[in-house]
């Protein structure tokens, strides 16, 4: 799908505030609301837009719950087994309560696996770190407790989209 300035304006408005009424976007563009609806649905159908969400810089999270950002070096031949273990962590470790591993993602580099852990106990935190370090498929582990985070959707992603539209003529 070739994007034009109308699509860019729609995306820019929704990057700023996903709850912007389409009628408001239409008024600013001097276009009928039905056209904006159509363009939005088309971008959704084409997969350019995946959805709408909320975020906070920094997090609104409960102060007692913490996220651990873990980098692991995994033996390549055991990557699948390690990922399966982590994805089914709760099943394999019923004694460790209040700890979840929502995300695991393989990558390239010295540390070839990223792991995100949520826990709200100090025991949960140290248990998960010990388990990772003791797993036979994991050679090295580095851990950071996430304090806060920032997303840069509006600047970086919109700039990229503008470049793409410009280059496609």
């Amino acid at each position, binding site marked *: 799908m070739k994007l034009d300035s109308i699509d860019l304006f729609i995306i820019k408005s*929704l*990057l*700023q*505030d996903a*709850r912007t009424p389409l009628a408001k976007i239409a008024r600013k563009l001097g276009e009928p609301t039905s056209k904006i609806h159509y363009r939005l649905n088309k971008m959704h159908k084409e*997969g*350019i*837009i*995946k*959805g*709408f*969400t*909320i*975020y*906070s*810089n*920094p*997090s*609104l*999270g409960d102060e007692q*719950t*913490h*996220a*651990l*950002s873990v*980098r692991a070096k995994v033996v390549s031949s055991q990557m699948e087994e390690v990922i399966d273990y982590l994805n089914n962590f709760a099943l394999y470790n019923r004694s460790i309560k*209040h*700890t*979840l591993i*929502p*995300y695991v*993602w*393989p*990558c*390239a*580099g*010295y*540390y*070839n696996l*990223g792991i995100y852990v*949520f*826990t709200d106990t100090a025991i949960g935190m140290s248990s998960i770190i010990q388990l990772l370090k003791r797993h036979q498929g994991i050679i090295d582990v*580095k*851990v*950071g*407790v*996430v*304090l*806060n*985070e*920032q*997303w*840069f*959707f*509006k600047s*970086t*992603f919109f700039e*990229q*989209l503008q470049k*793409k539209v410009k280059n496609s003529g």
Partner: protein
Amino acid sequence: MDELDTKILRILLENARTPFSTIGKKLGVSKDLVKRRYNRLKERNENLKSTVVLDFEKIGFKLIIGFSIKVLNESDVPKVKAELVKCPNIGYLSEQVGDFDFYLDVYLADINEICIIMEYLRQIDGIESLNPWFFRLNPNEKIPSLNELIFYSIK
């Protein structure tokens, strides 16, 4: 923030354009109450935002590089952070305590952009190591967020 606020935010995390009337019906409260709670949450947290989620590959990005950054001295953290937020193509930055001090994601449309990113990061004073790692964008892969702490009931 109470249970109702959490439930409202949980629905908006899945789809931030969900009408307040729909949220109200789902939670058994009035649309006006939902609207008041949402506005109150926004007033109390000016950083609460809603946004459209784009498919990064379809808008032209090919690769994410993550950097697990260690600073030389603790006292360098604020000044390093001030420089990291200006990094070209920055997508995400988190401050951490532990083996690393920051985690930075940059999004690349072209592999050659790595040179620009590395040049920028190497000139920042106070960084001990960058520890880059590469992952291909998978449209089905969720990018983890500390925000989702709100929504995991793990008790």
